């Protein structure tokens, strides 16, 4: 028999700290598989952010920097500008990227900064135990929206792919999901493409991965997968929001 599925080389052996069923582990693996398949492990420098994925530097088997909350795109910019031949990626959650780091992500995108951004959207602050995120759904109950997110008080969820698609800088923007194997495989292809765009020097590429937080959503891991499919996807439609290679039939 042949081994057809194993831990990617781009990931360390270290057990991950995530809660049972947390899709961060899946998305980490997809990033690792993308790095493996492009053969770029030695040239890759990753930037971990603040949030549940703060320890990402322990799980990726490449050079890593750990950035301040929201600043990963700025840190990645600093790395990429002085080492343009290296592959630089950030791995950020929704609080980090869509709230405190909004300026950094918008300007990195507007500059067409040649980096790859993995944006994990689970509609909640997981690490700090379940507060409302900028991407929390209308009516979603969190510790800081205990009666459900109200538009009157907290406005509307931020749709990052749609927002960034208005800019000319990005080369590739896609929203994918992690709630079942079919979507996970699709997410893997999008992530690989986002890395390839950087290798081809096409500029800023971002993949938004809808993900779960079963513990803070108060659901089982399986229930969380179903909740994602039923509730998040209608607010955050999946698809490719920008692809400068689309015309080339890529």
């Amino acid at each position, binding site marked *: 028999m042949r081994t057809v599925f194993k831990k990617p080389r781009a990931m360390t052996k270290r057990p991950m700290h995530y809660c049972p069923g947390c899709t961060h582990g899946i998305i980490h693996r997809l990033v690792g598989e993308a790095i493996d398949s492009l053969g770029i492990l030695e040239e890759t*420098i990753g930037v971990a952010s603040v949030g549940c994925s703060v*320890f990402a*530097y322990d799980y990726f088997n490449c050079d890593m*920097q*750990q*950035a*301040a909350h929201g600043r990963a795109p700025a840190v990645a910019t600093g790395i990429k500008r002085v080492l343009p031949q290296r592959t630089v990626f950030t791995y950020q959650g929704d609080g980090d990227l869509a709230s405190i780091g909004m300026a*950094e992500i*918008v300007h990195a995108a507007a500059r067409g900064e040649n980096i790859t951004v993995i944006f994990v959207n689970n509609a909640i602050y997981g690490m700090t135990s379940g507060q409302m995120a900028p991407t929390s759904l209308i009516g979603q109950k969190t510790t800081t929206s205990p009666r459900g997110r109200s538009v009157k008080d907290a406005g509307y969820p931020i749709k990052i792919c749609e927002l960034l698609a208005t800019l000319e800088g990005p080369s590739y923007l896609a929203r994918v999901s992690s709630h079942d194997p079919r979507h996970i495989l699709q997410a893997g292809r999008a992530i690989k493409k986002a890395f390839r765009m950087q290798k081809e020097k096409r500029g800023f590429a971002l993949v938004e991965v809808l993900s779960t937080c079963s513990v803070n959503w108060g659901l089982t891991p399986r229930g969380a997968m179903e909740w994602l499919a039923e509730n998040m996807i209608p607010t955050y439609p999946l698809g490719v929001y920008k692809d400068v290679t689309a015309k080339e039939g890529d």
Partner: protein
Amino acid sequence: MTKTLIRGNEALAEAAIRAGCKAFFGYPITPQNEIPDYMAYHLPLRGGVYLQAESEVSAINMVYGAAGTGTRVMTSSSSPGISLKQEGISYLAAGELPCVIVNVMRCGPGLGGIHPGQGDYFQAVKGGGHGDYRLLVLAPGSVQEMADLTTLAFDLADKWRNPVLILSDGILGQMMEPVEFSPEEGPLAMDKPWATTGAVNRKPNVINTLDIVPESLEKKNYALLAKYERIKREEIRWEEKKISDADLILVAYGTSARVARSAMDLARGKGLKVGLFRPISLFPFPYPQLKRLACRKRQFLVIEMSGGQMLEDVRLAVEGRSKVHFTNRLGGMVPTPQDVLETILKIREGGGPGENSF
């Protein structure tokens, strides 16, 4: 060597390029704009990267990223912008990333004004950001020193793996003086095995400031403190003028020190035994050197464009052995040598403003 007549901010920028600075990340704010302007024009022509960030916050984090690759990197700003950078500075210090940060001080607090000030002394030397960390802080007193201390700052940053802050002010940044530049340095020979440059033929490097295990973080804290102690032993810099017979020593840095020096000359012209002590490194502060000068027969007069910030360090240094007086101007006003002379004369008469504090 020929001398160039050049503005302070531009002298600093040129010296940085000659010192091997290969990346500059900035954001416009007065009165430091000539630094990013100069870098934007010259750095790309000389093998470096210039980028205008979307904010001071982003700029300092770009510095973090670039410093993490071992590249010589710099940012500059003025007081309110430096406040915005404090979070990033704390991370840089914690990550032990070498870089140079320039504060061309204006007056505050708040948006304050665009005229020169020295109100950021506490922020520069006592912390500014969160946590137990120190920066090496250098205070130029002339346009020549804007250049020379920048060269030194890059070397110290690499030597100690620590951010170095150049604490200048709006006058030193804007004034023009003749400067002799150091020759341009060749490629940096220093080995930086910790840098994240891509894990080719080695284990991955991680630049990280997080450690949630108290035992381990405490160890790291102690290691940083031990480094700061070594810095205190090895990196104190200061200048003395006409100290040996002086019964009144003026203590000032930066623009205030230039005023103090003129005031000292005026006082000497009147036969008064006045000297000048000018700290060049503000961290480490020349406590032992000032302490050595302190005695009952000798008094000190601290001159600052702040409410009395370095004054506290001078008091700490003399340990009560000498009387310490203080005079200042605020809000972008600069004390004149005549102002300082009048204070000196009052002190001579036994009056003086005394230990004026706020």
